[in-house]
Each structure stands twice: as structure tokens, then as C-alpha cells.
């Protein structure tokens, strides 16, 4: 396969996951912002911080829902906005068109300029509908790939890209939780805390799954355990790392060659296996998350190097 095609598939999947992740972050922001007193707590700042763009907003003003929706959904200059992600995913797809099934292409092509026509007022008004639309696009795309794409190396690049981005999304969502923790005024395990933790689960469509695993009780360490370490939940960091290891192993098999990325992913899986949620909190959730984000970034760069991305 052309290196350029592999790169396009990898990034196309990343952008689609990122669009969905950003949509989920917006959902979570809205849920948190309807809590009493949210306005004073600047909840939306934690959400934009989780996208890695906190510095774009001045410290001395409150980040409003308008700011967040405009920046995260519509902003053409923000490379991580949903609009940018969908456009870039489609551009990648166009470049790798011959590796896509017709259904995959149609999923990316339908309504590809839809967000161009929205202003922030309309977008806020229709936020749930738009978020559903984004999620449906991503799920249709994913389903089309799942049910139609040849299981060749192209599929492995696609799935590796998506697993990498998804691990980052879950890590970032956990980080939102870190940012909204207000230790001075809130007790861990208090009502608001409880509500915020469940928001994280909800944003990841993981509430039901969580109940099946842990029963009806919410505790920060169990939720963290679930999102970081549960190997059965497809959005957990552990699950995504396993996927990455599996996909990279298959690529090593196709090419009969191993590179730095194969060692790195192996180490990432092994390190996570040794952890339990108690240790995560002892080490610090934020620190654990930051460490995870930097290893996934490094892994991404190593994959690009191993397969001669441009």
C-alpha cells in the first residue's frame, strides 16, 4: 500500500474519532453547566482545556457556552473543531478514495459542508441535534468500515488511528474531571462530585456498561478503574491500548518488520496491566493522564516514522 494512503487512512480515522470526542465533550459540558452555581465555576473552561486549547481563552473571563460551541464545533481556524475534523477526514478520504468502500465514502461525503452554514446562535439552539448528527456520521462511517472494508493493512491503519485517538479522548475526558475538581470547596464523593463523575461516564456512553460491571454504586476509583483499566469496555484506555497492540502486531506481520512503535505499544500495555485504581490515585490522576497522553503522542510519531508517512 502507498505510504500516503496508509497515512490518510490513519488520520481519517483519527479525525472521525476526534469529531465524535469533541461532540461528547460538548455534551458533557452542557450537563455540567446546568448544575446550580455552574456559572461561577467556569465549567466550560475545563471542557475547552480538555481539548488542549485552554490557553486560547483569557484567564480573567468566564468561558461561555457560546465560546465553547463556537470554538469546538464551528471554528474553521481551530484544527480540532468538529467542522475542521469532518472536512479533514473527508479530504483524507478523497485522497485515499480507492481504499474506501462506497458506503464509507458516502458516510463521509453526506452533508460534508453542513456546518459551514451555522452561526453560533443556531448551533446552540440545535446543539443536541447537531451532536447527534455528528455521532451518527461517525457511527455510520465506523459501521461501513466494520462491515465492508477488506481486512488488509489499510484496515489495520484505520483501526490503529481510531484506537489511538480514542485512548486520547478517554484520557482527556478524565482530565476534565480533574479540572473541575475543586478541592477547597468540595468533598470528594460529595453530590456535585458524584454528578460530575457520572457526566464523564455518560459522555462516553458508559453508564449502563458501568452498572453491569460495578452494580449501582458510583465511586471515583471505580469509575477511574472502569475508564482506565477495564479490558471489556471499548472506550477504556486499556482496551484501546490492546487494540493498538493488536493492530500494530498485524502490521508487523504484513511487513515482516518491527520498529520502535511496536516496542512502545508493548510497554504501554504492560505498564497499564500493573496498575490498579488505588495506585492511580496515589500517583495522581492528572499525572497518570498526562503520562498516558504523552505516550500516545510518542506512539503516533513512531508509527508515522515506521511506515514512512510524509
Amino acid at each position: 500500500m502507498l505510504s500516503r494512503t496508509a497515512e490518510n487512512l490513519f488520520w481519517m480515522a483519527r479525525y472521525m474519532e476526534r469529531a465524535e470526542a469533541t461532540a461528547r465533550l460538548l455534551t458533557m459540558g452542557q450537563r455540567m453547566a446546568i448544575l446550580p452555581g455552574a456559572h461561577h465555576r467556569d465549567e466550560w473552561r475545563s471542557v475547552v482545556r480538555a481539548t488542549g486549547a485552554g490557553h486560547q481563552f483569557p484567564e480573567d473571563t468566564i468561558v461561555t457556552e457560546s465560546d465553547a460551541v463556537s470554538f469546538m464545533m464551528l471554528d474553521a481556524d481551530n484544527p480540532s473543531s468538529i467542522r475542521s475534523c469532518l472536512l479533514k477526514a473527508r479530504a483524507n478520504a478523497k485522497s485515499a478514495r480507492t481504499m474506501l468502500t462506497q458506503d464509507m465514502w458516502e458516510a463521509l461525503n453526506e452533508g460534508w459542508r453542513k456546518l459551514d452554514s451555522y452561526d453560533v446562535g443556531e448551533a446552540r439552539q440545535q446543539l443536541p441535534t447537531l451532536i447527534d448528527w455528528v455521532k451518527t456520521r461517525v457511527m455510520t462511517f465506523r459501521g461501513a468500515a466494520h462491515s465492508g472494508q477488506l481486512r488488509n493493512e489499510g484496515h489495520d491503519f484505520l483501526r490503529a488511528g481510531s484506537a489511538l485517538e480514542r485512548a486520547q479522548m478517554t484520557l482527556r475526558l478524565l482530565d476534565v474531571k480533574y479540572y473541575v475538581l475543586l478541592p477547597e470547596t468540595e468533598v470528594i464523593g460529595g453530590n456535585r462530585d458524584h454528578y460530575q463523575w457520572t457526566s464523564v461516564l455518560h459522555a462516553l456512553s458508559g453508564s449502563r456498561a458501568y452498572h453491569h460491571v460495578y452494580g449501582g454504586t458510583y465511586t471515583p476509583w471505580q469509575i477511574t478503574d472502569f475508564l482506565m483499566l477495564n479490558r471489556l469496555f471499548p472506550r477504556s484506555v486499556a482496551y484501546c491500548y490492546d487494540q493498538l497492540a493488536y493492530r500494530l502486531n498485524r502490521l508487523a506481520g504484513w511487513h515482516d518488520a518491527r520498529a520502535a512503535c511496536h516496542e512502545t505499544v508493548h510497554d504501554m500495555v504492560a505498564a497499564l496491566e500493573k496498575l490498579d485504581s488505588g495506585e492511580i490515585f496515589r500517583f495522581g490522576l492528572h499525572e497518570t493522564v498526562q503520562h498516558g497522553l504523552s505516550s500516545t503522542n510518542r506512539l503516533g510519531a513512531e508509527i508515522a516514522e515506521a511506515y514512512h508517512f510524509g
Partner: protein
Amino acid sequence: MPFHEMFEPDGSVRSCYDEVQQWVERTGIAGLNRRMDEAEAIFRRIGITFAVYGEGGDPERLIPFDLLPRIFTAQEWRVLDKGIRQRARALNAFLHDVYHRGEIVKAGIMPADIIYRNSAYLAEMADFTPPGKVYSHIVGIDIVRTGPGSFEVLEDNCRTPSGVSYMLENREIMTRMFPELFNQGIVAPVDDYPAELLKSLKEVAPPACKGDPVVVVLTPGSLNSAYYEHSFLADLMGVELVEPADLFVDGDRVYMKTTLGPKAVDVIYRRIDDEYLDPLVFRADSLLGVPGIFNVYRNGGVTLASAPGAGIADDKAVYIYVPEMIRFYLGEKPILDNIQTWQCGKPDEMAYVLENLHELVAKEVHGSGGYGMLIGPKSTKDEIAAYAARIRANPGEFIAQPTLDLSTVPTLGPAAVVGRHADFRPYCLVGKQIRLVPGGLTRVALTEGSLVVNSSQGGGVKDTWVLQD
């Protein structure tokens, strides 16, 4: 009145259109218009678009599609088929001749200037013979009709004729929306085209090729106006779609960069212009292209389809001589006529053109896509005077043709079936054999009376049927 493809002068339906007529009556004009919207939605969803730059608005446009097919009878097609193949053979023989002995010039049939001073002539191709002696592997010939039995060639496209994806997609849409029309098996299928193209390309593999030839389609990239077609053809042939940056030269071969390392390429169906092929030979200022590829080509390491320099055969000044070429190289009588053409480069012909510009169509020799044309009868006095001044300044750059009484094809209007002018482009494949699928692209001017069918200027497309006996 121009010849109408569907109706006789007395208003009765030509028999080849019987099925269509019944279908129109059954469905009703309103019903057909509703189906047009559905067809458009399908085109948009599949992503069959072409790009138009610099005009604002949606950069990826749909070409308007018309539901009513253009129909050739089996008998009409037999003539076209023979005439097209004949022309493709003559054009390839001409290309070989101009890059070798130049016998057509020596025989006094064509003036040397037209060839050797032409910007499409590439001195770098002299004395080189491409595999199989094939220069133009896909010959697109634009044909118009002026009467029941008269088909005339408007121009030849020997470089990279585009539009074949529309031939295939138009048929796809029609069979999807109106399966009942095809159930009787009266329409000859065209879906072999990609397989035939691949066969033709493999037949011209270079001497260095061992085993099954590796074929690729070379595109300038996803911003090119015909990118959809490039990816579509690569897809249907099951070959890689590469951009120049995916290719590199090492020693005597061309390779593509893959995740497994370099892989040798044998045949490149290139959809980029000569001048952007190789910055070492053609345009040093270009960032496009594959450095060294031309040298590999000349040494038999790779085949370029179509051959560099093949564009000399689609020059409008060369076009005039194609009937002569057929007689000279093939010793045959031309089956398809040219349109009468005056060359402004010849003083007496220029005089005639300037005098009669108000009733002629004048064109730039190197122009394409309907740009830079003057349609005399539809122009103002000032426009004609301005164009005449341009001709006087550079006579050799212009030709002129009569405004033909082009046939009209049935086209769906809001309230009735109307007649619109159309042309027709079949795609003739040249490898070791010559192949032609029964069909092609019919382009139609959607405005009443208009003669401009180019997609860049608002023309539309429709399915083309060749009826089986």
C-alpha cells in the same frame, strides 16, 4: 430545422425512440422531473463532482444530468465504430511518423511548420518508439451529427480525454432508477470499459517488465477537476491511484513508495500534462512531476500512457489533415468526415474568415473547453470586430468553422420534452488491439439554441444507448 434525434419532421417518433416515448408517456413529465431530483441526490451522495475554481460558491459541482437517453441504432453504431477505430489508427500512425521520418511532410501533404513549430511537439520524443508503437492509448473523438446519416468529427483528444466516468455513472444511475428500461436487453452494455482499459494498458508494458505488469493511475491530486474520474478508474481497474510525490526513480526503474518499501511500476496511465511529468526535462520550475521519469521511459523501464508529445495530434491545426492521414497511412477512404475548417494562417482563408466572421465559429488553435471561442451569429458587432483584430494580430493561432445545423437530442424540460444541441465523445482504447465499448459520453447544451456543451460552461450529460440488433 436541425435534425431531431427523437422526432421526424412530421412529429412522429423515430422508431429507435419508441421505448423511450412509451416510458415518457407512462411516467409523465412531472414524474420524470421528480426522478431527476432523486438522480441528482444520488450523484451528490456518491460524490460524482467536478471542481470549478475561482468562481466562488461550491467548489465541487455536479454536472447536470438529463434523464432522457441519446440513442444510436445498431446500424448507426457500426458506421461510427469503424470510423472511430480508423481515426485512432491513423492518429497513432501520424504520431509515430512525426517523431521519426516525417514522411507526411516529405510527401508534401502537411506543412512542416504546423508540426515542428507547434508547442505540443516534443523534440525529446524524436526517434523514440513507445512499446507497441502506441502513442495515444485512449483516443476521445468528439462527434456531432447534422443529419440522418451524417456524422462529423469536431475534434480529436489524444492526450487525456476525460469524462468516461460519466459514461459509466450515467448508465449506473439509469439502470438503478429505471430497471424496466433495461430488462429487455436492447441496450448494449458499457461496463466492460475498465477491464478493457486495463487490458490495453497491460498490453503496452515496457521491455523491463517481468511478469504481470503493475499498472497505476497518476493524478495531480485531489484538487484536480477530474480527480473523481481518476480515482474512479483506478478503483474499477483495481490499481493504485498515485500522485507524483508517491513515485521516484531509482536507476532504470520507477518505483512507488509503499508501506512495504519501494515497488516497481510498469505502466503509468497518467492524467497530468506533459510539462508537469518530469522537472528535469520539461518544466524546471514545477514542483510537480517525477524527476528522471522521462529518462527511464526512453530506456524502456516504464510506459507512459499516453505518450508525451501525443498532444500534437489533437491540435486544431493538425486536425484539418486527419482525413489526409487516413488516406496516407492506411490507404483507406475516411469513414467519418471532418467539419470544414478554415485556417487563418493561410492568407486567402483568413480573408474569407474575416469577411464572414458573423456567420462562423472561430476558435483558438490551442484553446479547449469552449473558452476563447467566437460564435459569430450570436455575437455583437463590437465582439466580432474585437475578435477580428485578434485574428489579424496572430493569424496562425486561429481557425474557423461554419455554424453547423447540429442535431438536437430529446431533453427533459419542466413541461415537455425539448430539443437541445449535443455532441458525443466515444473513448477508443489502443493497445495491441483496438477496443471500443458501444457507447460514450453525450454532452448536451441545456440552454435553448446554445451550442456550448462544455461542463465548465453549464453543459449537462446524458446516458448514451447503442441498441442491439
